[in-house]
């Protein structure tokens, strides 16, 4: 039941989130961002994934094919049989870089990011206390916007502007 409740709560947020990502993906598409890394995917789908990745905290700062293990470009004419001479860093350094990377992700993304989310959640619950009042106020503003488009015949409409409202309540 709790899962259903949570999914119900975030569905509109997710919808908004998707619209935002699509908007940015379309912006990237207009300026023709390179999407070679995504192979045969259509550009818009690739950019959608790219934007989603950056929204989720994508940490692939270097070439998406190679990660941190950067391959040095071979000079023409130089013949290299040893595997190690192709790479820029030694195996130990590469392993260590990935270790630091994992630690960094753990602290920065998992802990720090969740702090931010917790803070946002707290402020949301504060707003939520007065949600009904805010909701009614917002609706009044919209009703007013509709009413200024009314002509005299609408104001005389008995259904729109009745003389009396009778509300029945069950005790």
């Amino acid at each position, binding site marked *: 039941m709790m899962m259903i409740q949570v999914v119900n709560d975030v569905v509109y947020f997710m919808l908004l989130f998707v619209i935002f990502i*699509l908007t940015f993906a*379309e912006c990237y*598409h*207009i300026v*023709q961002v390179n999407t070679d890394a995504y192979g045969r995917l259509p550009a*818009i789908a690739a950019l959608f994934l790219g934007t989603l990745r950056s929204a989720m905290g994508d940490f692939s700062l270097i070439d998406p094919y190679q990660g941190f293990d950067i391959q040095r470009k071979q000079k023409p004419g130089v013949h290299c049989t040893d595997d190690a001479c192709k790479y820029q860093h030694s195996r130990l350094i590469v392993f260590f870089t990935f270790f630091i990377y994992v630690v960094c992700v753990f602290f920065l993304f998992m802990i720090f990011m969740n702090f931010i989310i917790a803070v946002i959640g707290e402020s949301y619950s504060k707003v939520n206390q*007065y949600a*009904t*009042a*805010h909701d*009614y*106020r917002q*609706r*009044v*503003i*919209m*009703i*007013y*916007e*509709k*009413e*200024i*488009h*009314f002509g005299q015949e609408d*104001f005389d409409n008995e*259904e*729109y*502007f*009745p*003389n*009396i*409202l*009778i*509300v*029945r*309540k*069950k*005790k």
Partner: protein
Amino acid sequence: MQYNYIHLDKIQGEDKISLTRTLKDSEDLALFEQEAIQIIIDYKWETYAKRFFLIKLFTYAVFLVTFFVDLETLHGNASEEADVHPRIKDLPFIIRKVICELIQLYFLMYEIVQFRKEKKEYFKDFWNYFELLGIFLYQWASILDITNRIPATFAGFCLYSA
């Protein structure tokens, strides 16, 4: 059973819009926690405002989808080898532009009516600026697109920055 009577005729008086105007301008949130106020707002909302804004939302959704499809065809046929792909102006292009323009025109008319009724009040709500900006920017982009200036400007910009 309990029956509550709300004498709307006595509350709203002759100028029937004054009730919502007063409520709209009220800064006191506690007012909207009053049951009678909530009932009045609920009634007005369900009777006419909700349907109207749903239609407006639907219209805007149609515009967004059409505009999105239009933007997707901006770079022409990308499989052809060329630096600048000219805009393909076929029948679907014209249909898309006409749909977008009609919807934008409707929104513009809506804003004009709102301005004429509200006068100075219109410029106090800052969302209205966004709505005007949206209409204006779409027209600008649309004119650039129709007059074929987007690929040229874009290429020119690239050359300039390079």
